[in-house]
């Protein structure tokens, strides 16, 4: 069976763990073997969080190896850097470019990376980057769509994931999870799905002079 390794990073309170849970539920519905593990340490709201999701393995532990992630979904700009070592050179990144400055940054004591720096770094690390700008998030009713579901929609269109889980199954999982918010979540998911098909760049061949890699397989 094809496999797909996904790393999700962000900050406590952004719904990163919820995304891990939704991917697992969708995998169960699609009858795809799954293992996933949340890492939040002692983080309350505002601390670093990570979820590692592995799909399609007959037997595998839940930790994604370095350089093993087909997909990286980051919900926060600076935290993206923590997910980056996991990326495969032929991997794909969904960056929801939210900025959540820790206190040290607000006080001018610590540095915070720029969007350009993060995107440049991603370009040297993986094959494709989808940038979702929080300011340009589409609206549903009076408010912008839910950020994590929007980002999940963008992830759902990824070729490697679609081989295992059809995006419609993932969409159905989101709808079933919160029946009362079905419409709002559907709007978020679908908007993300459309944006996910518009990567800002493909980076075949990179700064570290690795050989160009193409997605292969069935």
């Amino acid at each position, binding site marked *: 069976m094809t496999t797909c390794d996904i790393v999700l990073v962000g900050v406590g309170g952004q719904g990163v763990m919820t995304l891990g849970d939704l991917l697992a539920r969708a995998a169960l519905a699609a009858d795809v073997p799954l293992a996933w593990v949340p890492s939040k340490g*002692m983080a309350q709201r505002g601390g670093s969080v990570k979820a590692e999701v592995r799909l399609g393995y007959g*037997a595998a*532990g*839940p930790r994604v190896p370095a350089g093993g992630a087909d997909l990286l979904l980051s919900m926060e700009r600076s935290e993206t850097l*923590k997910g*980056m070592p996991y990326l495969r050179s032929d991997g794909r990144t969904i960056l929801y470019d939210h900025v959540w*400055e820790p206190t040290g940054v*607000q006080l001018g004591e610590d540095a915070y990376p720029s969007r350009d720096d993060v995107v440049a770094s991603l370009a040297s690390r993986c094959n494709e980057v989808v940038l979702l700008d929080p300011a340009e998030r589409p609206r549903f009713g009076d408010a912008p769509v839910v950020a994590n579901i929007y980002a999940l929609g963008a992830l759902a269109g990824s070729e490697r994931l679609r081989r295992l889980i059809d995006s419609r199954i993932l969409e159905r999982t989101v709808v079933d999870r919160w029946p009362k918010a079905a419409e709002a979540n559907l709007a978020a998911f679908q908007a993300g799905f459309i944006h996910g098909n518009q990567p800002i760049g493909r980076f075949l061949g990179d700064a570290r002079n690795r050989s160009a890699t193409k997605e292969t397989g069935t």
Partner: protein
Amino acid sequence: MKTQILTGNEAVALGALRAGVKAVTGYPGTPSTGCLAHLLTLDLPDRHIEWSTNEKVAFEIAAGAAWAGHRAMCTMKMSGVNVAYDALISIAYSGTNGGLVIYVADDPGVSAGMPEQDTRGFALMSHLPMLEPASPAEAYELAQRAFELSETTRAPVFLRLTTAVALGHARVDVDAEVTPRDIAPILEKDIHRYTKAGSAICMEQHRASIERLDHASRAVRAMGLNHLHLDPEDGMLGVVAVGAVNAYLSEALALAGTEPPSGISTLHVATTVPFPWDEVCTLLGHCRTILVLEELEPHVERGLYVAAQQSSFKGRIVGKLDGTLSPIGEYGLQEVVKGLEACGFLQATAHDGGAQETATSPTREQPAAVLDRGDELCSAPRPITVCAGCPHRGTYLAIDAAIKTAGLSKDEVMVTGDIGCTILGMNPPFNLLWNEVSMGTSVSLAQGYVHGGLTTPVIATMGDSTFFHGGIPGLVNAIQHRVSLTLVVMDNGWTSMTGMQVNPGTDDVFQRDGRRIDIEAVLRGFGPDRLDVVDPYDLERMTSAIADGLSVSGVKVVLAQRECAIQAKRRGAVAGHTEVQVDKCVLCKRCLKITGCPALSVSPDGSSMTVDQSLCNGCGLCATFCPTGALTHSTEGAAT
């Protein structure tokens, strides 16, 4: 049967229900908490489930239920075994009647603080069998086998998960629960078995405990818990993998396109104790090189050296003792690949990019051997701090102010810390606490500093659950021996850091069948020289209570009482309302610098500070420090 997504913790809980467990006790601790926490979400009328005062109490209760003939389990993190062990070794000597399972979660890689202790050492020390599942599905299965093994051998049995298995989610096929046995309790009076009075009794029990482990060795073999796969050809390499590492071994072999492995024999170890002698000796007789993959201490590897000596094995053993692998951290695919490479396997195939193509796995670049964290250096640091509205913030700021009031600096006043959320005062912006050792240590350690000749005041800090768990003996000692110190008990009514569990001080409303113990009455009963009960949101009173304590001798206790802000907020209870008068804010950021409150930030347009009302609990501490009166606080609309 139903297929569910479960964590290892939940799988242990459901496995125990399937085994007909009657009583489950525990003390919260990451990564084990989710097991008992899950049971408390279920409706289980025939069973007793509780968070106990500490792990020793939890174990003793489970042991009593098991001596009475029922199946019982206690749950804890690895540090908890240290607390429970005093009782545990004694009951290991006596043996059990009903199945008695100690579920412990070890934390290689340290996801949540505390030493990277390998609890298999305790199983070795107490001659108790220990089952080590590799996945949530195995955890469900082995939880049931653990009860059977305990009753077959009459030994208490450890069930040990590691972080990735305990917190990891996977599919598990779950069968229906089994109702606990309807039996009359066993009332057996036998001092030779149930007491430790005299050398004859103790040595006889010691002998019996070793015999029980021998029995377990035969039972484990009969149950087929350790899986030996011998390559049909005379084996080049034998790989021994313990517990969680087995999942990554399967993956590494699949990556190399050699599943089932050719030229490789494997031994999947689920019991370091009892040591799988027969399987190991067979493997040694079949292979020229043996690779041992186990997280933390080389317990199985040492056993292999003994077996190798006894069976005149002349080959090579690769693992930690030859320096190939590390005893530190969690193992993943990288460590397995490193081990296989050290044995000369994988080099010519997968890792150099020449992976063999198979029908099911397209050629893919293999993962790197080492996690290159170069980029992480550029990410903004996020030190853990207390939540918005946390009452501990008031306590830290008051201790800081009291030290200054006493004419001292923070660098000359020892403030001992303790386990739980209360330790977060070690981080910025407080930088207040000097140490963290074990549950309740702060108040005893402080006495040592006094006897060690410290002439400046000594302050100890601990939370309410920590006080009940292990802090009481230390405080009693300080009072008895008239040691001058100030203890601040930070009572927020919950065991918070592990996810809000009920403790003896939690309000009656949240106690299931239990009742609240009045912590103030407990403290008063010990007769400290001074006891102040203060709301930590009241910075002025809090500061003066601590400062007064620092100025006189004797044991002074300050009970800082205010419910955990997270729990209060969940119920809609807020202390007041804080907001920014934008025109008055000069953006000096003093509020943020001093309190570090996550509800405070610079507004998006950069013109002033702003308060995130979805986080703010209206404690008003930040307003205290605003030099221009831009931050205003009112207690109007406060609700409890």
